[in-house]
């Protein structure tokens, strides 16, 4: 089922009464989540991701705007009537109940026609547990499980009623790096298998990019960009999005456009025919550098890190906005580690120009 968010806005009264006014947690959020897709909601801490999720599931009422599930307006519907499953940031597994009791808990709330027999509940719980591969852990208490297992229990509990929409709030933030990788694959698999429309909140761009069909990048309650992960990465609309996506992050330089040519310092690095003259921020993706003897961009070499398939060349440039420039280069290239300078040619489609004041993208 698709989920439509229409001009969704949430304002909180300011907690600090003296400051007055209000906090705009989410501002004019419009988006249609396509049926059966996994959407990654991405942004730095405090940008309103959880608030958006809470509005979708009905735990918080939007200040203005509407929410539709399919064709139905659910804006004023209480959470239990929306048919959503939620995995909370800290899982919120009931510590005094076993895994089995945790998973059957939502089923026991069903009333009237939907009421299930004990056996049906057990069967459904088992099915859900099997989906996340925890069927051997059914009689344990949450504190006897590892973080990853707890997380799966939380997913099983959210899935047991077969919700129409599944909402996950930073479900991997408590896990270690390896488990995180494993579990996100798991979530992807479960989502594919069940085809449930899913919203996945995270502040980790890598996580969002790797499993989402569509990502939504937010900042200060405002949507910055919506698109397929690769498209957003290749074609960010502004400096914030460019900086937020990608590891290692994009390299930033102070540059200047003069008569259709981009200069970094005195180096004329690229021809940018469509751009107007003036100072610009230049973002170059790490994979946008090519080692070349007569390359236009000259940097002082500080080190080379071998990563097997690739090598990472670390260098400095007086016009770079960060201390180190990281470029990822195919390992077939040989770098003379004793050399003082390296020279790079640039891949035009990996070079991004932004306006100095607004951070808006300049296309060329």
């Amino acid at each position, binding site marked *: 089922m698709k989920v439509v968010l229409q001009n969704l806005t949430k304002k909180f009264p300011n907690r600090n009464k003296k400051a007055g006014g209000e906090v705009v947690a989410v501002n004019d959020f419009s988006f249609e989540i396509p049926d059966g897709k996994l959407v990654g909601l991405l942004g730095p801490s405090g940008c309103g991701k959880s608030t958006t999720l809470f509005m979708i*599931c*009905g*735990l918080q009422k939007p200040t203005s705007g509407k929410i539709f599930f399919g064709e139905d307006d659910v804006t004023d519907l*209480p*959470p*239990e*009537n929306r048919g*959503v*499953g*939620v995995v*909370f*940031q*800290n899982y*919120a597994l*009931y*510590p*005094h109940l076993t895994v089995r009791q945790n998973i059957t*808990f*939502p089923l026991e*709330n*069903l009333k009237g026609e939907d009421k299930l027999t004990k056996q049906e509940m057990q069967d459904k719980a088992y099915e859900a547990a099997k989906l996340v591969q925890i069927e051997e852990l059914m009689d344990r*208490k949450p504190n006897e499980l590892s973080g990853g297992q707890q997380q799966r229990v939380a997913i099983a*509990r959210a899935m047991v*009623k077969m919700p129409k929409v599944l909402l996950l709030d930073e479900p991997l933030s408590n896990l270690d790096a390896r488990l995180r990788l494993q579990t996100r694959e798991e979530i992807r698999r479960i989502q594919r298998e069940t085809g449930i429309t899913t919203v996945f909140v995270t502040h980790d761009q890598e996580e969002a990019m790797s499993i989402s069909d569509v990502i939504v990048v937010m900042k200060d309650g405002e949507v910055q960009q919506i698109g397929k992960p690769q498209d957003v990465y290749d074609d960010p609309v502004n400096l914030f999005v460019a900086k937020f996506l990608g590891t290692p992050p994009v390299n930033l330089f102070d540059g200047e456009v003069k008569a259709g040519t981009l200069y970094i310092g005195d180096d004329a690095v690229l021809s940018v025919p469509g751009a107007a003259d003036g100072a610009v921020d230049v973002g170059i993706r790490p994979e946008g550098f090519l080692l070349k003897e007569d390359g236009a961009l000259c940097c002082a070499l500080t080190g080379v890190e071998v990563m097997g398939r690739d090598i990472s060349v670390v260098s400095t440039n007086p016009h770079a906005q960060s201390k180190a420039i990281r470029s990822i280069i195919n390992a077939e290239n040989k770098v003379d580690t004793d050399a003082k300078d390296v020279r790079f040619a640039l891949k035009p489609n990996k070079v991004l120009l932004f306006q100095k004041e607004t951070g808006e993208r300049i296309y060329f």
Partner: protein
Amino acid sequence: MEKNKLKGWLYLLPAILFLGCFMVYPLIDVFVYSFEESYNFASQTYQGTGGFNFAYVLHDTYFLQAVKNTFLMVIITVPLSTGIALLISVGLSSIKPLRRLFQTVYFLPYVTNTLAVGLVFMILFKKTEYTDGLVNLLIHWFGGESVDFISGPYWAKMFVMCFYIIWVVMPFKILLLTSALLSVDQSYYNAAKVDGTSGARIFRKITLPMISPTIFYLVITGFIGAFKEYSDAVALFGTNLNAAGMNTIVGYVYDMLYGDSGGYPSYASAAAIILFVIVLTITCINLLISSKHTTYN
């Protein structure tokens, strides 16, 4: 390792000495006295050993009355005070405006002197030549007969006594229960709400188990406190509790030692040991039940 152990004991020594002198030794002494017939403090003599003291105490009508009174107080006040405190705490934590004010109001009895509270109860309940007390005024209002709560029928006295005890222990219970309620993570409630759990079920299946350690703590300490009831009875009915028929076990012990008919340390010791056994048994039962029901901590 050995050295560390020694150090540990060394650090514990002051506490052990202190407790040994002022708690363990007297306890043993009381135990010994309780088996010595007609022990005399002044001459430090006794006439024989055996269970005579226990037999005497257990056949003393004053003691039996005291046991009955104490048990009634325990059985009435512990569940009632805990239950009412829970109700008030749930109410307190579900309201936003004026919560602080209410919390303060409910906490006032805790910082008020027992005797001052006793005075208030006198105004409420005591019959004098000039007035029948506030409560009797109310009873009159509704067309009832006035009751002498302080020196009238047994049930009326017991009612005032229990009312008083509940009133005195309530603030502490409310304090602990509200903080226990507030410490339950909001996300459990969010999760339950999303799953369409009814309010009653949330309370029964989530809130209660989450605060059950606090509840059990309050019940256990409540039992112990109620069994040791004495000063509140004095505040209401004066020092001659036997005459009022409102004596408690601790009161009986005191009377046997220092009361008008006092001077019987052996009987007092026997009564104290009986109380000790009762409290120990009840506490063990409590702990057993609580360990079965609070697997979560």
